[in-house]
Every structure is written in structure tokens, then in C-alpha cells.
């Protein structure tokens, strides 16, 4: 609460070289800048009255920092999808943070400013383009807020409608009872009892309705109606394309004849021929023979390995 008893303090928004940072109370500002501008008492920089604004925070340095940050962020407004990866984006964020830090703490102001200008020149188009768009996070937030608002509105309407409906039903019921009492021949006690039952039924009915009414602001796909679909390009991944290379196995043995040639060369002469039942599963005697030959041939030239 302390803050509310303080006089309204004003701070200056111009970014300056010297470590001078002006805070004044309302009267001083009025007095000093009768003509709209004047010089700083400490460092003689010309100051303008409309560059002063109310101090928001208890710590004036925070006020100053936020002011600078807003200015810097106007220039450094790249979004996450302007970068090829998260790492680069994070590095960029740190650069921004460094700039703000330097400007607030008056470290190396000249160079920092130069760098900022250079960046601005290089990225003029991008800055203009991004000015109009929100970041994705902000978009999400906006969306949530919108949903919340809609939900609240919907709820308010529902409650109103519900109340109206109940009121109507009750009134109707009452009128019906009066009418019946007027016209019917039955004794009043029976009518009253009937009325009571009917009223109870009405209550339960209303209860049921209440529970069945569900909000319908979803498409059947589960997407919220009026949802703004953000069209982000898929993240670019730069990799070397996969190239197929045929498998080459060094057997350290003589060349094994091809599967198709086995019969011709005569390997199959002493192999049991495949039965009709065997062939049903795709088996042929050449297969078994081929494996056996591979097995037999591999590793026959052990000296070859030694040589290499």
C-alpha cells in the first residue's frame, strides 16, 4: 500500500549515453518544462516533456529496462519459424537479451546501438512483415481468451434462458391448477394432490434437460469452431539423402554360383528333389543347396585375411 501514498513520479524515456536517469515528481516536471522542453540538470541533454511518463514500478531501473526492451523488441522481432532450429532461435533470444542488458546498464552503448542499426538495415523487410503478425504463443493466448469469453457469454445466456423457462413452466402450471379448480367437478384436495405430483414431475424434467444440454461449439473433428488455424511451415530439416548401396559380404572363399545356375552346373544332381508338399510353401531344392554351398565355401581362403 506504501506505493499509493507516494507522489506520482515521472521518468524520462530517452535512451542516453550517460548513466543519468531522471526521475521527477509531477510538480518538477510541470515547472521545468513550461515551454515543453529543457535540459537535464545533471548531464545537460535536452529533454522533452512528452517523453516523461508515470513510473509504474517501485524499482525505476525496471521501468527503464521495460521501456528499452519495448523499443528493442520492435526491431528484433524475428519469430521462431524464421529460424531453422530451436538452437538458433535461442541464440538469437540471448542476443536480444544482451542488447537490452547493455543498454540498461550503460555498457558499451555506442557499439550496441551501432549493431542494432546494422541489424535494422539488414532485416528491414522481415521487421516490417513481422510487425503485423503475432507470435505463435500470443496467438494461442488470444485464442484461449476468445474461448473463455465465448464460454462466459454462453453460460450467461444459458442461465438466463433456463431461468426464463422455469419461470414460464411454473406459471403455466399454476394457471392450469386455477383453471381446473374453476371448471372441474372433482374435490379440491384431489386436484391439489394431482398438482403437487405434476409439479414434482416438472422439476425432475427440468433437471434432466439441464444435464443433457451440452455446449456445441466443437466440430465433429474436435476442432473448436472459429479457431484460427495457424499455418506454420513445417520445420526444415537439412540432412544428406539416403543412398542405397548393395550389400557386399566378404566370404573369404571361392565364388558361390548364383541360385539360378546351380542346376546347370550340376550341384543339384545329388540333392533330394522337392516334394509337391514342400513346394507349396515356396521351397525349392535349390534354396537348401545354395545355403549348403555358401556354408561350405566361406572361409576356405584364410590366408586372404592374413594378407589384408
Amino acid at each position, binding site marked *: 500500500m506504501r506505493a499509493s501514498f507516494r507522489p506520482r513520479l515521472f521518468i524520462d524515456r530517452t535512451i542516453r549515453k550517460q548513466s543519468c536517469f531522471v526521475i521527477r515528481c509531477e510538480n518538477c516536471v510541470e515547472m521545468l518544462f513550461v515551454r515543453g522542453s529543457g535540459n537535464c540538470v545533471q548531464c545537460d541533454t535536452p529533454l522533452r516533456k512528452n517523453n516523461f511518463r508515470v513510473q509504474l514500478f517501485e524499482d525505476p531501473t*525496471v521501468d527503464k529496462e*521495460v521501456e528499452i526492451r519495448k523499443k528493442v523488441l520492435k526491431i528484433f522481432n524475428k519469430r521462431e519459424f524464421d529460424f531453422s532450429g530451436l538452437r538458433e532461435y*535461442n*541464440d538469437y533470444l*540471448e542476443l536480444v537479451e544482451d542488447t537490452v*542488458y547493455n543498454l540498461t546498464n550503460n555498457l558499451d552503448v555506442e557499439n550496441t546501438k551501432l549493431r542494432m542499426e546494422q541489424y535494422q538495415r539488414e532485416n528491414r523487410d522481415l521487421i516490417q512483415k513481422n510487425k503485423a503478425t503475432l507470435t505463435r504463443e500470443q496467438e494461442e493466448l488470444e485464442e484461449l481468451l476468445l474461448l473463455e469469453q465465448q464460454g462466459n457469454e454462453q453460460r450467461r445466456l444459458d442461465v438466463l434462458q433456463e431461468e426464463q423457462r422455469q419461470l414460464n413452466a411454473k406459471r403455466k402450471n399454476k394457471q392450469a391448477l386455477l383453471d381446473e379448480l374453476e371448471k372441474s367437478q372433482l374435490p379440491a384436495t384431489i386436484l391439489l394432490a394431482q398438482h403437487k405430483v405434476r409439479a414434482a414431475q416438472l422439476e425432475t424434467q427440468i433437471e434432466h434437460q439441464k444435464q443433457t444440454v451440452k455446449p456445441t461449439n466443437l466440430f465433429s473433428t474436435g476442432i473448436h469452431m472459429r479457431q484460427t488455424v495457424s499455418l506454420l511451415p513445417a520445420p526444415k530439416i537439412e540432412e544428406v539423402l539416403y543412398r542405397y548401396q548393395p550389400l557386399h559380404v566378404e566370404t573369404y572363399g571361392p565364388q558361390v554360383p548364383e541360385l539360378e545356375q546351380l542346376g546347370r552346373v550340376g550341384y543339384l544332381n545329388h540333392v533330394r528333389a522337392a516334394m509337391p508338399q514342400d513346394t507349396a510353401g515356396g521351397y525349392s531344392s535349390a534354396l537348401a543347396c545354395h545355403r549348403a554351398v555358401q556354408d561350405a565355401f566361406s572361409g576356405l581362403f584364410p590366408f586372404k585375411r592374413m594378407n589384408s
Partner: protein
Amino acid sequence: MKLNIEGLLVYFPYDYIYPEQYSYMLELKRTLDAKGHGVLEMPSGTGKTISLLSLIVAYQRAFPLEVTKLIYCSRTVPEIEKVVEELRKLIEYYCKETGESNNFLALALSSRKNLCIHPEVSALRFGKEVDGRCHSLTASYIRAQRHSDPELPACRFYEEFDAVGRQVPLPPGVYNLDDLKDFGKRKGWCPYYLARYSILHANIVVYSYHYLLDPKIADLVSKELCKKSIVVFDEAHNIDNVCIDAMSVNITRRTLDRCQTNVDTLQTTIEKIKETDTAKLREEYRRLVEGLKNANVARETDVYLSNPVLPDEILKEAVPGSIRTAEHFVGFLRRFLEYLKSRLRVQHVVQESAPQFLKDIFDKVCIDRKPLRFCAERLQSLLRTLEIADIADFSAVTLISNFATLVSTYSQGFTIIIEPFEDRTPTIANPVLHFSCMDPSIAIKPVFQRFQSVVITSGTLSPLDIYPKILDFRPVTVASFTMTLARTCLCPLIVGRGNDQVALSSKFETREDFAVIRNYGNLLLEMSAIVPDGIVAFFVSYMYMENIVASWYEQGILENIQRNKLIFIETQDAAETSMALEKYQEACENGRGAILLSVARGKVSEGIDFVHHFGRAVIMFGVPYVYTQSRILKARLEYLRDQFQIKENDFLTFDAMRHAAQCVGRAIRGKTDYGLMIFADKRYARADKRGKLPRWIQEHISDGSLNLTVDEAVNLSKHFLRQMAQPFRQEDQLGLSLLTFEQLQSEEMLKKISQIAHQT
């Protein structure tokens, strides 16, 4: 006694069993067979704990591959000790019957404060201090420093444990907190870390709710417990409030001021380190850039602070670039802090949602959502890098960073309420920012998802269907058990009118009504004349109690009561209350008789049992509704209505009735016990209130005892007390409410038992 529960051999350590215990075990077994969750209500004092334990232990032995561990959660340390004692009995019985030596490991786990054996550290009074000191002795970087400088103080128990304790598993047996301490002293090992290490291979773990529900602690302690565990929440009627408290944050102006000094300290420390040891900061920076998870860096003693959000919500990403370096992060904290300060400077109440807050914070101080989400983790890393020994001092900044992470992670189920002053004192500025969780299912959801069976049980869980609703889970069994009684030993009476026909009620309009207050006084006076020994009276709030007692004093009623019995009063001071309780018990013991005036939702109503002569009658003055004007409650009610279709009034009544049932349930702690339960408010007679009492109380409310005057109630009570005062032996109970093994075998009895469970 060896029981056969649907084909499962269960050893039950007593010679007799209550029929409802048998029924309870049946239901529990079905739940476990289905690998689902269950909600079971059984009256207090009917041996819920031992039934649970003996069935689950039997199940574990029969199917060691299906169920590897039982996690038993209770509320307080005395309750934990009670469970362990029951368990000890059971395991001893097993050893006796089977003749094998025990190979079961069961242990209790509690905070450092209850387990520490270090002579200096354990002498500290508050839990936080003990934690802080322990951390300053055992953190890994401090132990690393000790290599270069052996003069630094150390905890020899931890060192010893670290050196040899891990290789040797804790021998099988049942350990309560004292056993652990003894074992630790004998071996020279730190019992706390020993227990924390041992829960990984223990068969049964008994600890407090918070170790599972509070994400800040659960991440540390219960992270590696396996999926094939059974989780039991005992005394779980308040479980929704525990869940909500675990996720809520309150920030006052004082917190922010302390936070400011914390941030200043951080900054000076960073500057100091920069001059002496830049390598350390650079190392941290490198780690953050690489996005390494700190899991492989942190050791068990270091993770003092943990992330407040639930495990699956934590981002598996590198820390954003804007808070990567230490100075930037401190600047970030400063901005966040100043923003909070400016928010607390409001003149009127503000209520807003998390997205609104995030938008505003971006507009005001340019803080994005993403760095906010990483705030807790980043602070953790910084504190570790700066090697700050006494972390207890940094509780304020930790709180703030937790808040930052929570508010940016969850966009639903939370609300932010900023109140510039308390409602009762509108002239004194005391701004508070409540970040309150409205959805208890958020905190408990990972528990339901992770473990195959979760059992929620208590003496008062009525109406049963509301718990699955507000905790958002699908139970496979929902059952309520009644108490089989050889004699009706409880006598609920609803007193609706005074002798002068004035309606008795604690509703707001009649709070100041002298006629009502006088009639309440008469009720207590008359009861004090006829009820032997102790009476416990519950009021709806401290304020109401003060008012009533003051006007009883003026009307001279107190003086008359004091002729019959002494009067003790519960206050908000815990020490005073325990003193009052002690004296109350003394007065009951020596036959003078006493009355304890206490408050529903207070300490007495929750944890203290009034067995036998300590509570022969409980009088509930009024219906204990919560303070309905509170904004947090209103927001929660609204949320319940919108999300779960629970009407405001239903929830309020449910909440009031569960507390009323808790209060009156204090008097009956077993079948040989007896007690009057007097509900002194005419609203209890209504069907919607009565229907929300537990079934075992509801059964005994006859139409004749619905709207009594004080005189009628006194007559009925006299009759009841005279009957109950007759000697009551075990033989009277046998066969009806207490069964031997032979009796349990008969067809007829089994049929009867099957009716005890009331499914909903």
C-alpha cells in the same frame, strides 16, 4: 484365522472377525483382480486397516508378479504409526503360522524432522530448518568442497550411509519411524536417506499423502515406484482439498519483500562468483545451451527444490535463450517481481484467468510464456551452481518461481484472485494474490494413471458417487459397508426445536437470535445432566462459538452447566488446544465429567478419537457450511458446475455433511463403544441433508427421531444411555457382529454378509 476369500488364502491375525471386514475384503479382492480403482466406505472402528493390510499382503504373496508393492498413504504421523503397528501384528502372525522366517520389508517414511538422528540438526524445532541444515551438510558440492578442505562440517551419518549403506539392503522386517532411527543409530547410517532408498525395494511403504500428491515432493520421492503397486488412500474424505492445496500458491506483500532480498542476494553472489570462479557459470551456461536434463547431474541430496508441475507437463526442451545466462535470469526475476508488486497495489478485488494474466504480463513487462514455464527449473539450476548452502532462506523466490511455472503451464482449472484486504477488515491493507487450483483431479491424475489399483477409503465418503466425479476417474468398485451391531450402540437424534417450539438453526439470519442461542444452551445443559463422563460439542466456526459462549455466560447458562461438568474450549492455538484436550481427558478419567467445545473442520474434529468414556455424546450445533462468501470458493463452485455438472448447492451440502459426519463419528470408535449423536439444527431433517450422511449413520435415524424438541431428545437419550450401561460381553456379540471361523463357514452367514456391501 485363515480365511478363504474367493480362493485366496488370507491370514487374519485375530481369532474373531467382523462380518463387514469379510465383506470389505471380498470387494477389495475384486478391485485388485480387475486391476482397477475402488472407492470403499466403512465405518470407523470396524477394523478397516487390518482388513486392508491382511488382504493385500495375502494378495502380494499369492501373486508376487502381479503386485509388487503396497503404498499406504495416511494423513498424520500418529496414523502412520498405527498402521505400522497393525502391520507388525500381521507379519508376526504370518511367521507363527507358516513357521518361515519373514521375508517382507515394510517401512514408514516421514520428513527429515521425524527421522533425523544428527545431534544438532534434529534438535531444531521446525521442519524447514531441519531440511535446510541437512541440505547444507549433505549437498554434493559441499561434500566435494570437503575434499579440498576437510575442516568443513559434515554429517557423519550420511557419509557412512553413502559409503556402505547402499550395498546392504535393509533386512526384512517391519520398521516404524523409531525402528528406523534405532537401526540408523546402531549402524551409524542416516535413517532418512536409508528409508528413501529402501522404499524402492520394500514390499510395503507407509507414508503421508503429500509424498504422492504434491508434485514438488512426489517427483523426488515417489518417482521410481513401479506401476504394479497398489495405492491406498486412508481417511481420504478430504483428499480433494489436499490435492487443491498442493497446487495452489498464495503470495502476500511480505513474500514479495523477502523475494526482493533473495534476488539481491542472488545478484551479489553472481557478481562475487564472476570475479572468483567464472568457470562455474560458464559450465552451467554450456549445460543449458546443450539442453541436458539435470537428472544426470543432480544427486539425491541436491534436489531440494523440485518442479511444481506434474511430470508429463514438463517440457523436454532446452531452456530458452532469454534466461540462459545468470544475469539475464536475475533481470527476468526482477521484472517479474516488480510486475507482481504492481499487481498487488490494487484497490479492488481482481479475478482473472491464467491466459489473461499472461497477456497482461506480456503487455506490461514483455515476459513471454515460455521463459515463465522454465522459471522453476532455471532457478533450481542457478541455486545449485551458486552453491548456496542454506536454501531455506530462498523459500520466497522459490514460491514465486513455482507460481510462474504453474501459471504458464496450466491454462485451465486455475484462477487468480487478488484481494487488497481481508473481508473482515476492509480498512487494513493486506493484499494477497491467490493462485488457486479449482480442479482436484489435476494433482491426482498421474496417480490414477500410473498405478494399477488405487483404493480410496474412509469412514465417511458419502455420497459415494461424488468422489469419482470430482477426482475424475472411473472406479471398478464403489461400495459402502454398514456396521453390523449386536445392539444399536449409536443413537443419532435430530433436534429441530427448542422446548418453546423455536426452530433451532445456525443459518445466517438467526445467528444473533437470542432464542436460538438460549435453546442451544438448554440442550447442552440438559445433556450435561444426564450423559456420563465426556461430551464433545462442535460449532460451525470459531466466531460463532465465541458469540454463543459469550451470551451463555451472560444468561448464566455456563454457570449451570459447570455444576455438572467442567468446560474446555478449543482455540486456534495448537498448544492451547492440546493442553485443553489433556485436561479434558483427565477430567473424564477421574469421573468429574467434562465438556469440550470445539469447531468443525478444526484440529479436534479431524484427528482426535474420543473412545468410550471420552465421548459419550457428540452435539453438532448447526450445519458446518464453509464460508460461502470467499471468492476462492465461489470460483471453485462455478468451475465444478461448468466442468462436472455439480450444482453449487449439492457440493456445499456434501461438504458440510462430510464434516458433520466426521465430527459425530469421533464418538464411536468400535463396536463395544457407544455414544449419542445429536444434530442440533432443523435442516438436518431434510432429505437432501440426511441422504448425504454415511449409510451406517443414516440407517439408525428413524422417522421418530427427526424433528425432536430438547425435552424429547433428553428422554430418548436417557432411555438409550440406560440400555447401553448394561454389561456387554463378547458372547453377546458372537454370531451376530463378531464371527469365529466356524460361524463364518455357514451358508446362512455368507448370505447375510453379501448384503452388507451396498453398491451404488
